[in-house]
């Protein structure tokens, strides 16, 4: 029986995504604030301004989807805003989970989620890695 006190093993999960910047711009044109507020957090909308706005939002959308791939939500509902991509002091980004996304990470024992994003005028990409700590299989290794 697994009582949680046995040896633990860490594995890595990785997720990536690519988004066409034009698609993000089209959604903003077509659905306006309703699109922006369903997908992005106030922090993300505050950070992503200026002429590169669509590129930067596209990179954040790619990052959210990459986080989804790491969390593996299956039948769990995870709103886009439950995954926030925050600007870090050193110039990169960090991931902050809330609500269902945070609960799912706990259930999946996924921690230390790291993200890297990049964007050009046409495409934005993101890669996410995370650690999953689980009970080790000890049956054949007393």
């Amino acid at each position, binding site marked *: 029986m697994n009582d949680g006190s046995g040896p633990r093993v860490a594995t890595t999960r990785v997720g990536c995504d690519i*988004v066409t910047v034009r698609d993000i711009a089209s*959604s903003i044109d077509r659905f306006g604030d309703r*699109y922006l507020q369903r997908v992005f957090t106030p922090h993300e909308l505050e950070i992503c301004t200026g002429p590169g706005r669509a590129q930067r939002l596209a990179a954040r959308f790619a990052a959210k*989807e990459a986080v989804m791939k790491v969390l593996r939500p299956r039948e769990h509902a*995870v709103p886009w805003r439950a995954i926030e991509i925050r600007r870090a002091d050193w110039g990169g980004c960090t991931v902050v989970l809330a609500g269902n996304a945070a609960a799912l990470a706990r259930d999946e024992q996924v921690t230390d989620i790291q993200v890297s994003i990049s964007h050009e005028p046409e495409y934005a990409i993101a890669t996410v890695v995370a650690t999953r700590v689980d009970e080790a299989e000890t049956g054949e290794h007393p």
Partner: protein
Amino acid sequence: MTEQVIRKVLGEHAKLSVDSTALDPAADLYELGLTSHASVNVMLALEDAFDVEFPDELLRKSTFASVGAIRSALTELGVA
């Protein structure tokens, strides 16, 4: 009628590799090219078409996985 509107929305927003009017109701839309971002557009266009709002509880991948799944979600939201 509802299914026709769903197919029209899919034709305009889902970027599928096939004609949405000829889709099997059970066909997997993700396998036919629906991306996660396109599913957001599909959701917002469905909200416009049926005057509903998808609550957070329905924001799971399977809600938009097929014409039939979308139909079921809309029924849950009170669309006849």
